[in-house]
């Protein structure tokens, strides 16, 4: 199929349809409202369901209901909206339902701003809602990857019966790039008859299905959490995605960066190379499961003097990088936020300072 030029937000909407998701619930919030606008036109054309809920709180539960009934479903929102959905995300993870959440991040805390940011790393990877759960978090670096990750998200959500988040930022949502929708990323929905509340007559079963997260017996709840943990461990084994850039040579510094920020770092690395300075980039494409061993091994390269995490935040992913490097190399941080994005020139300057 020929490439088309599309805005990230619209491409994400189309990607959901191409992945076989025909159900979408959302509440408007900048900078991602174009997804809802696009799908409000597009879903009726393909016989899908579009509904604008009364709040992000309600939308979270519309996803829970639809997913609990065994259907593929997605919502998109931006940071403050994801906070409101976090209650439902915890319940969905607890009840082991697949659902796809897209967060087109904006600056925070509170109302913050509407420009691109990466301030929701902690929220996405370490919590958001209550209890011991994790989302599988995919972080695209552009419109094409946003499409691919959105398409992959449904299969991953169903593989683990766990909510999956695609985490972009306002830049990825708003910019236009050429995209194609790879047919091979479309997966067949898995059979949910074993667990979904899809109606006994639907699955021709006399046994009722129950979608729930309440386990009042402590031993039972402990076992439930052990089962969830086993899934997160399986994610770490089977579904880590990452990219190393310019890491074949003798790099002096390893830059850890993801999403929009990684594109700026890529340009900075090319500019440094032109000046004879070798820097490599480690880019996690899954923020959870975090590519723990990969960043550790890349940092330990003999010529590498230090690691720096560069983020559109005040320092969030850097904590994972530090954890994985285990003190074996110094781990530095640089970040700007609120819509300010470190420029390639600034990154060059910092790198030169660090490697002397």
């Amino acid at each position, binding site marked *: 199929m020929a490439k088309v030029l599309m805005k990230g937000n619209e491409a994400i909407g189309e990607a959901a349809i191409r992945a076989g998701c025909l*159900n979408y*619930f959302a509440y408007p919030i900048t900078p991602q409202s174009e997804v809802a606008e696009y799908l409000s036109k597009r879903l009726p054309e393909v016989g899908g*369901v579009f*509904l604008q*809920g*009364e*709040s992000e*709180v*309600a*939308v*979270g*539960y*519309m*996803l*829970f*209901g*639809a*997913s*609990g*009934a065994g*259907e593929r*479903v997605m919502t998109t929102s931006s940071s403050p909206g994801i906070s409101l959905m976090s*209650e*439902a995300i915890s*319940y969905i993870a607890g*009840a082991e339902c697949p659902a796809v959440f897209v967060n087109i991040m904006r600056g925070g805390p509170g109302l913050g701003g509407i420009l691109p940011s990466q301030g929701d790393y902690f929220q996405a990877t370490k919590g958001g809602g209550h209890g011991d759960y994790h989302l599988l978090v995919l972080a695209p670096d552009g419109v094409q990857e946003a499409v691919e990750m959105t398409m992959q998200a449904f299969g991953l959500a169903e593989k683990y019966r766990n909510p999956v988040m695609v985490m972009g930022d306002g830049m990825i949502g708003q910019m236009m790039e050429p995209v194609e929708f790879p047919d091979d990323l479309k997966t067949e929905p898995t059979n949910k008859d074993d667990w979904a*509340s*899809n*109606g*006994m*007559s*639907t699955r021709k079963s006399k046994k*009722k*299905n*129950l*979608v*729930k*997260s*309440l386990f009042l017996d402590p031993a039972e709840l402990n076992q439930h959490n052990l089962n969830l943990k086993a899934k997160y461990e399986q994610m770490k084994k089977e579904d880590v995605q990452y990219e190393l850039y310019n890491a074949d040579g003798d790099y002096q510094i390893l830059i850890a960066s993801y999403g929009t920020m990684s594109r700026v770092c890529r340009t900075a690395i090319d500019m440094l190379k032109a000046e004879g300075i070798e820097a490599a980039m480690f880019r996690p494409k899954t923020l959870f499961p975090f590519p723990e061993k990969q960043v550790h091994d890349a940092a330990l390269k003999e010529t590498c003097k230090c690691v720096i995490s560069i983020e559109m935040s005040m320092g969030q992913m850097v904590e994972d990088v530090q954890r994985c490097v285990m003190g074996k190399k110094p781990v530095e941080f640089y970040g700007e936020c609120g819509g300010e994005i470190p420029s390639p020139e600034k990154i060059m300057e910092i790198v030169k300072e660090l490697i002397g």
Partner: protein
Amino acid sequence: MGKAFSKPEALTDNYTHYCPGCTHGIVHRLVAEAIDELGIRENTVGIAPVGCAVMIYDYINCDFQEAAHGRAPAMATGIKRVRPDLMVFTYQGDGDLASIGMGEIIHAANRGEKITVIFINNAIYGMTGGQMAPTTMPGQRATTAPAGRDTAQTGMPIRMANLMSEIVTPGYVTRQAVLKPQMVNKCKKAIKKAFQYQMDNTCFSFVEVVSTCPTNWGMTPINALKWAEETLLPYYELGDYKTPEDA
């Protein structure tokens, strides 16, 4: 002689965990009978609330999902929109529906979701132990209103059926009670009608059921029924507040 009375198929064999004199058991049975009579059990998904009835799925024998506090109408919306062929009902108490879930219930009704809502109004929080509900009567004692509900601080009790009837979108809104056999019979008819409207894809349906909570009211079951009749019914008047035929 034929069998005159038997357990509905839609009720499980489990004993309920409800306190002596609690009317949840009666309403569960009415829901189960309506499901049986309409032959929809294998096509029905219930939404359990947070409250005493959270384990309704142990007693009613159909598919269930368990909501967070107050969010049942949003979950029911999610199910009904993606599977319009399923029969979807929520079963919610007054803390769940009239307090934390006020937004969800109003908007589900206003969108005209083709779902059935059973709303148990017993003027108190049950599961958490007798705290004040939006439906608690003026002066009625609760664990968070030890001197009785002070309406100057907390306003007057919310009359959900009256409020819901103001929504312009067509719907079925009724208030029933289960304090006496004839009330139970009328309530049964209303619940069945509420499911029938959904089967016919007619409208959103809302059945408020004035109920008792002897434990948290600190009364014997008999006195609870008496108090409900004397105190709740004059304020929470029974009857149909809105029908789709009005529209």
